[in-house]
């Protein structure tokens, strides 16, 4: 990546060009634009409490997107993450005993790791295995809590109302998520191995590393992120619903891609992914502030997605040629 940046900079000879060739740049620009638009339309929101309420639900999508990102690091795709997050939500809300709930959540993460192992051993396409798994998670969720409801532990819903000084909690969560994701994938040798699964599994094997173990680690990391997302969801909504995850899966894919991720090659950006998740989350609020009729909100959301990716395709084409 550094190479492409440099080459591009030589070609165009400007700092802007270097910036444009960074993978997460477009998501930063998009996020700034969306934020400026929101603050311009509703100046009252540009305060501690306004931001807190505006981004109230964002940790759910942020961690769901990070989970999707870890799977996409292995050049795989996860169609089950939405119903997995819903399952976690239901476990937190539906299983009263803390010990049992914790054990169930651990089992969930282990289940994710096993899913990775299954995909690896049998060389199955991840898209279908996770498709099947999405039914399994949904079914398990319905078995725990057949109807929406349940009770969330008090300490959890209280934790969601925490007001750290200066920086609103959701912003803090986003920053921590970015940092952790970046540290894991880009600042450790473990991260190099993880990215190797997607970019060059053969090289990884030749270097004496186990692709199986690396892929399982990626899936387990995704499972952990999914659990965090589900716990946030339970804490924020203080209820459980096994069907709540439907839209989440596709939004998470959108967030990773907006953030500069690719479907193949182990190319992802944790920082960009979190930004992408925020863009997806905020574009909904933006549209209701702009009093776009509910029917057309989907359209504008789709349009934003196309614009961002179209722009990226155009700027990247210039890099290649």
């Amino acid at each position, binding site marked *: 990546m550094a190479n492409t940046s440099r080459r591009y900079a030589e070609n165009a000879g400007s700092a802007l060009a270097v910036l444009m060739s960074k993978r997460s740049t477009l998501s930063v620009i998009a996020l700034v634009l969306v934020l400026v638009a929101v603050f311009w339309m509703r100046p009252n929101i540009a305060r501690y409490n306004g931001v807190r309420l505006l981004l109230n639900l964002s940790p759910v999508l942020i961690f769901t997107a990070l989970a999707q990102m870890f799977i996409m690091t292995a050049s795989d795709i996860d169609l089950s993450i939405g119903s997995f997050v819903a399952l976690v939500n239901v476990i937190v809300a539906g299983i009263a005993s803390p010990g049992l709930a914790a054990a169930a959540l651990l089992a969930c993460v282990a289940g994710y790791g096993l899913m990775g192992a299954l995909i690896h051993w049998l060389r*199955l396409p991840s*898209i279908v295995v996770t498709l*099947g798994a999405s039914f399994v998670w949904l079914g398990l969720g*319905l078995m725990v809590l057949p109807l929406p409801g349940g009770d969330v532990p008090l300490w959890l819903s209280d934790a969601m109302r925490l007001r750290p000084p200066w920086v609103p909690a959701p912003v803090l969560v986003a920053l921590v998520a970015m940092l952790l994701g970046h540290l894991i994938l880009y600042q450790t040798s473990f991260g190099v191995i993880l990215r190797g699964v997607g970019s060059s599994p053969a090289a990884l094997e030749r270097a004496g590393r186990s692709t199986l173990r690396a892929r399982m680690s990626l899936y387990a990391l995704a499972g952990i992120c999914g659990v965090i997302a589900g716990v946030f969801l339970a804490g924020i909504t203080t209820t459980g619903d096994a069907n709540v995850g439907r839209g989440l899966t596709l939004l998470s894919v959108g967030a990773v891609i907006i953030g500069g991720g690719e479907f193949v090659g182990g190319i992802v950006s944790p920082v960009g992914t979190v930004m992408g998740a925020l863009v997806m989350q905020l574009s909904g609020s933006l549209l209701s502030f702009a009093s776009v009729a509910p029917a057309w909100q*989907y359209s504008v959301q789709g349009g934003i997605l196309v614009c961002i990716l179209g722009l990226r395709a155009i700027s990247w084409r210039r890099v290649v040629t």
Partner: protein
Amino acid sequence: MPLAIRRLVAQPSFYATAGAVLVWLVIVAHSHGVGGGAVISGALNYSVFFALVGVGQMLVMASGAGNIDLSIPANITLAAYLSSGQMQGANAGMAAGFAIGLLSGVIIGLANALLILALRIPPMVATLASGLVIESFCFAYSRVSVAKPAPLLVSFTTQRLAGIPLVVIAAIVASAAVIAVLKRSLFGRHIFACGQNMTAAWLAGVNVRRTRVFAYVACSTFAALAGILFAGFTGGPSLNMGSEFLLSSIAVVVIGGTNVAGGQASVVGTWSASIFLFLLLTMLNVFQVDPGLKNVITGALIIAVLALGKANRPQAQ
């Protein structure tokens, strides 16, 4: 194993078909041999829509790794609304209704192809975005119009000829045409060539772009057709009528033995898988399995069928 059996098992569609037969036998055994024909007839009448959508999705998936159409649910709903809105519950508007529904399918296919080929957006995200846009149109349209399918269409989707629903016969003819195109025509060979290796296909002189555009247009046209017919079958369109087709359109294609990496497809398998999934749900309903467990079993079976098929089909890498 004798060669004949080994050949049979090596067929891409073997596991889906075997699964469907097995589940049917269980259902018939449970009812002590009564109503086996009715079960098949009912299953056909419902799974035909999934098969039609699946055949379209199959063409897209066979045209190369990463190719997929997620706009199908919205596409189905829009075609259903547009056609039924044109028909207004009268037979006179039927031809126009079909035309307008299919036209919307073709336009959606072209738009998808434009996003994917001209803007180079990955198919998964491009069709996700176009699906969102189409969904808006569905919402907007459903507010301003009365959509009611023509009585003739309703009876066409439910009438039977010698126990076989008419719509199934029509869909079988359409599927046979797809098989013929895939096996015998240049376009069919081009799809597989693109699916196996796009660069090699391009070097060999295949017009890769045109082939992929065709695949996406064919897919969305099939989805639109299924939408028009499904509106007749259910007595009228509804906003969430397409949602169950999102995952099942992918499931039937893959369980049916089509390679997700592209380059190979099975129309028969897609049909078998549609019937298999429907019979499976019927069976679980007959045994009164609770909804949660039903989903778990469905999911586990999707993975199991896939794993079995893969283990016994070493050539499909």
